[in-house]
């Protein structure tokens, strides 16, 4: 049972500020840390252009201002330019979150003309070998070319690199690469263990020492940059929460500001919510978005605080972290309404400690690359 919220006792909802449009689960890359659902191959029937435009129009009316085009690889949609143009007309700030595969000079120009505001480009590593191995593709040089294309069209660029034990030792080189490519921001996103990353957690999990060494490198870079007097690249180090004592404020609270729409039109309070049991997720092709956002069981299941169990229920920090991540609570404790076990006040915290400690002894488990065959095998 997901939460104890009475469907009639609805917590008043503010506007969704973020719309994440996951245009497709199709992707030319096969990253081992992908957070897409492992069973994505069972998701058919992508929304049409007209349906996406309808979703964007409704979400904008509700108050969404930031729009992320994501996936999968959103460039696989031939109508991306049309969707960007419409989003721009509606007044969104438009973000394209991409691996870069499929972006050539002609397409970049069309996206610029359509009003695209920003591109987030993912890299897997500073070396060709590891980039290509982890994504199971030959894309390293392509990504360098795409980065130059992004700058040539005067877009701000966020470079994103997912960190894990294989590339943590390269963190300074990754930063140097971002600076060399003129990225305004570098997101060093320590792996969050959902989807494919959850399957591969033993292979990806660093040791505490590896993590501390990388964080020290990041601090050293920041200090050097501040001393230089010019901030060229702002580096974000996304906290690896398994190593923390308090959970992240996931989604800034359930149903608070974030609205995700999956390729098939399923509206979700979090892009990993598809597999949470007990949620009655609704589809934008069948229900108006305002009803979904304000009144649906799924968006109210963990909205506010009534659903919280001890120790969250009486915790002085519940307004700060909102009880952490529901997906993580479910994956580790089996109960989506439990306190996020990352929190050391959780009765299940020891399980997180064990996941970290046992990983080095479990490295023989083979990596599972994200692809249709592996996905179908898990349907």
């Amino acid at each position: 049972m997901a939460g104890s919220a009475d469907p009639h006792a609805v917590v008043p909802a503010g506007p969704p500020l973020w719309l994440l449009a996951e245009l497709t689960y199709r992707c030319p890359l096969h990253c081992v840390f992908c957070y897409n659902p492992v069973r994505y191959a069972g998701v058919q029937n992508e929304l049409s252009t007209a349906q996406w435009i309808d979703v964007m129009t409704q979400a904008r009316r509700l108050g969404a201002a930031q729009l992320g085009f994501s996936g999968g690889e959103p460039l696989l949609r031939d109508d991306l330019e049309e969707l960007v143009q419409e989003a721009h007309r509606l007044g969104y700030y438009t973000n394209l979150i991409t691996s870069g595969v499929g972006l050539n000079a002609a397409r970049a120009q069309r996206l610029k003309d359509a009003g695209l505001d920003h591109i987030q480009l993912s890299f897997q590593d500073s070396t060709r070998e590891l980039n290509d191995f982890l994504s199971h593709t030959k894309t390293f040089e392509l990504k360098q070319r795409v980065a130059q294309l992004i700058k040539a069209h005067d877009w701000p660029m966020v470079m994103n690199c997912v960190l894990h034990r294989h590339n943590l030792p390269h963190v300074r080189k990754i930063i140097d690469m971002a600076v060399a490519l003129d990225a305004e921001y570098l997101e060093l996103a320590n792996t969050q263990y959902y989807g494919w990353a959850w399957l591969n957690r033993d292979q990806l999990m660093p040791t505490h020492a590896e993590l501390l060494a990388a964080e020290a490198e990041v601090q050293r870079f920041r200090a050097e940059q501040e001393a230089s007097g010019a901030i060229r690249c702002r580096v974000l180090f996304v906290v690896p929460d398994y190593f923390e004592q308090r959970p992240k404020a996931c989604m800034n609270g359930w149903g608070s500001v974030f609205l995700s729409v999956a390729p098939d039109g399923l509206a979700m309070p979090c892009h990993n919510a598809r597999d949470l049991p007990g949620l009655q997720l609704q589809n934008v092709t069948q229900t108006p978005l305002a009803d979904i956002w304000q009144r649906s069981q799924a968006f109210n299941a963990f909205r506010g605080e009534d659903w919280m169990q001890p120790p969250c229920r009486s915790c002085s920090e519940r307004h700060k972290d909102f009880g952490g991540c529901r997906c993580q609570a479910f994956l580790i404790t089996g109960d989506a309404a439990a306190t996020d076990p990352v929190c050391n006040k959780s009765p299940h915290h020891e399980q997180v400690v064990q996941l970290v400690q046992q990983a080095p002894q479990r490295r023989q488990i083979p990596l599972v690359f994200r692809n249709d065959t592996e996905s179908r095998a898990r349907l």
Partner: protein
Amino acid sequence: MGLDFGMTLPEKPVLSRRFRLQFEEAQQRWVLLYPEGMVQLNPSAAEILKRCDGTRPVPVIVAELETAFSVQGIGAEVTALLEEGQRRGWIG
């Protein structure tokens, strides 16, 4: 926090082209939009930033605001906001 990089304000401040100033109906306030983020502005910050178009010197911005809102002596407040904006990269 007050990190001081020893920066001085430009004579005629201009909003960085990396930020978009926009009124949001649903929130009934002005916001600054940037890659994957949004700053929600209070009314006075919005009025100051709206005038950062690269043509107005700081004293002109102050005088305009004092006239528009029938107040006096807000120079220090305006400068503080502009310095904060510069530290956060809003002001080019």
